[in-house]
């Protein structure tokens, strides 16, 4: 009895010591996350319930006043609509393109693979603001795109792309696709490389066309990674800011303003309203959470 107790005891302390060491290693990271990330989140939530001057915030009456106001705010509703327009058009187009590029570049007998991969990935290495400015210059009234289209007789006179509600949105979507397709392609490419080539060979012997191979072999096997990229892109698009500011400045008449851009305006451009801005950012959080939940439900059948 006492013997077994004695053999048990050191085992317990050993285990406890081990888990203690584990916790000790986790501690610095956890403390930093709680302090730098969770604490500000909680504070931001509290601020989202407040109103008043930035340095004299008070809890509003009723508490959810800021959230209530959001649905009456025409500019916010416009920005919401714009952001979802970007999301619905841009994300699917981009992911499909990324998938196509990835499967093209995954061909075994393709020459200069490295060069093509670099070319498609390169846009990702450009800074958000600088590429936005390049696009703005390209699509300016006397810019490159207009010059080409007019010279090629596709247009009679130059189009003021960025001063047209639809044109401005289209340019932003185009810019986003250019910037992010390569990024998503890399994810697909890396997981495609883990698919055994013999599967494709077997399929080809059975007479499967390249398209069937893509839809019946590649896509099902890539499902988890497609899900990840879809969630990341959705999240990124809902928080879109740089393009709206640097490319179109939200114009014309708020036709291309995004939610994050509007939040920035409420905080720093117009008379500051920290409480309302915080409430709007929590709205984005809720939307990202809901959309991700839906995507997980649809995409992950495990």
């Amino acid at each position, binding site marked *: 009895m006492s013997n077994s107790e004695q053999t048990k005891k050191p085992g317990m302390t050993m285990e406890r010591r081990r888990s203690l060491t584990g916790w000790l290693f986790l501690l610095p990271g956890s403390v930093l996350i709680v302090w730098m990330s969770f604490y500000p989140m909680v504070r931001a939530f509290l601020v989202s319930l407040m109103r008043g001057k930035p340095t004299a915030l008070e809890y509003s009456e009723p508490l959810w006043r800021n959230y209530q106001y959001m649905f009456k705010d*025409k500019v916010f509703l416009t920005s919401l609509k714009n952001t979802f327009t970007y999301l619905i058009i841009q994300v699917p187009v981009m992911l499909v393109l990324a998938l196509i590029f990835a499967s093209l570049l995954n061909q075994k007998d393709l020459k200069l693979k490295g060069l093509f991969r670099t070319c498609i990935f390169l846009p990702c290495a450009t800074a958000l603001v600088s590429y936005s400015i390049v696009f703005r210059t390209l699509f300016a009234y006397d810019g490159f795109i207009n010059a080409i289209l007019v010279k090629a007789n596709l247009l009679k006179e130059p189009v003021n792309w960025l001063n047209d509600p639809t044109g401005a949105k289209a340019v932003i979507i185009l810019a986003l696709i250019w910037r992010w397709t390569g990024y998503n392609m890399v994810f697909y490419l890396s997981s495609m490389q883990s698919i055994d080539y013999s599967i494709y060979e077997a399929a080809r012997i059975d007479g499967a066309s390249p398209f069937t191979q893509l839809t019946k072999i590649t896509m099902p096997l890539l499902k988890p990674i497609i899900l990840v990229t879809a969630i990341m892109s959705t999240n990124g698009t809902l928080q879109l800011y740089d393009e709206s500011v640097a490319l179109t*400045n939200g114009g014309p008449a708020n036709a291309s303003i995004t939610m994050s851009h509007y939040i920035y305006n409420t905080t720093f*451009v*117009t*008379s*500051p309203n920290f409480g309302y801005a915080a409430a709007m950012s929590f709205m984005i959080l809720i939307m990202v959470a809901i959309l991700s939940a839906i995507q997980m439900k649809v995409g992950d059948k495990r």
Partner: protein
Amino acid sequence: MKKLLAVLLALTLVLSMSAVAFAAEDGKITIWTWDPNFNIASMKIGADMYHVDHPDVEIEIQEVQSEDIETAVAQAAVAGDLSTLPDIMLCQDNSFQKMVINYPEVYTDITDKYDFEGFGEAKAAYSTVEGRHYGIPFDAGTVVAAYRTDYLAEAGYTVADLTDITWTEFAEKAKEIKEKTGKPVFCTQAGSGDWILIMIQSCGASMFTEEGAVNLKDNEAIKAAITVYADLVKQGIILETNSWDEMIGTLANGSVCGTFNGCWILGSIMATADQSGKWDITNLPSLEGIEGATHYSNNGGSSWAITQGTDVDLALDFMQLYRNVDFYNAILPTTSAIATFAPAKEAPNYTAVNEFMGSPVFATIVEYGMSVPSNITGAYYYDARNAMATAITNYINGADLDSELAQAEDTVNFAMGF
């Protein structure tokens, strides 16, 4: 490797500590401002002049963009730690009241500490909140209409034909100029609302009432201004560009006949040396049928603020420069920053004929400046400006003006209702 890291760490530590020691030193003035060719250049000249009598005061001028200064003020005020802010910082006139009203703990009330005699009244009003002064006026934003005289001659016009006219007369003449030269007469940035604000201020009207309530939908001056503007845009007399640099580009390329803006635009015009002798300025067309309409207005300009908790006396001693005619005289040739301090117009550089423009334009502008009616900005200026710009764009694209302005007023009231 480890050693190198340790050395690097120690080095950063020492450096950051010495930086702290530096900031705490007495007799140092830190200044935040933007634009190396304008504000920074003039502050550098000012610092040199101050050093003649005060050789041991260190003056550090840092380039910080206007919006970054506003963000930094917000952060410092909310954190309750003003030590991150400089002693003196520049603030856009249109933002000044917004900043003081929202962050009163940052700005020093200098009403009884600085002499405001001689500064244009409309200018000083931008940095005044409830009768108290918080800013020292700097550059004028007096609006000028600047024309390419060679293009006008091509169409058979002179600048005199476009002086002291109304907008209707302008539209007729501009149409002919456009037909004959094949170029738009003016160029402006789309969706900025600049023109409308210039036009309504020329009548002494504002987007707000004296009591601070928003006044858009029943504002005759705004309606008249928007109608005139939209008509000129539709006729192609005004070209709307999407960005500021694109607009400056049209001036440099000579693809428009002129510009209509705050007098600081002359800096950009004079930067293109090959256009020397081809420009001249005049006053603006006036709005017809609006009470108090004049040919003078204001767009832009900024004023200096002094941070609370710093060595205010030292900062104010330095800022006496802005009551010194020699200073304004010295900065004019390199920066073309035009004073709002009335005695400066007698300075030799002001009365001299400007080579580029062919006339003493700067004295003319100071004179225009004295006739500019003042307007009301308040804390919600940018809210109203953004809402109005939306209304203008929608109106140009075919919406109904009255309902657009009513909606803009709702938007501002919404923001004010928080």
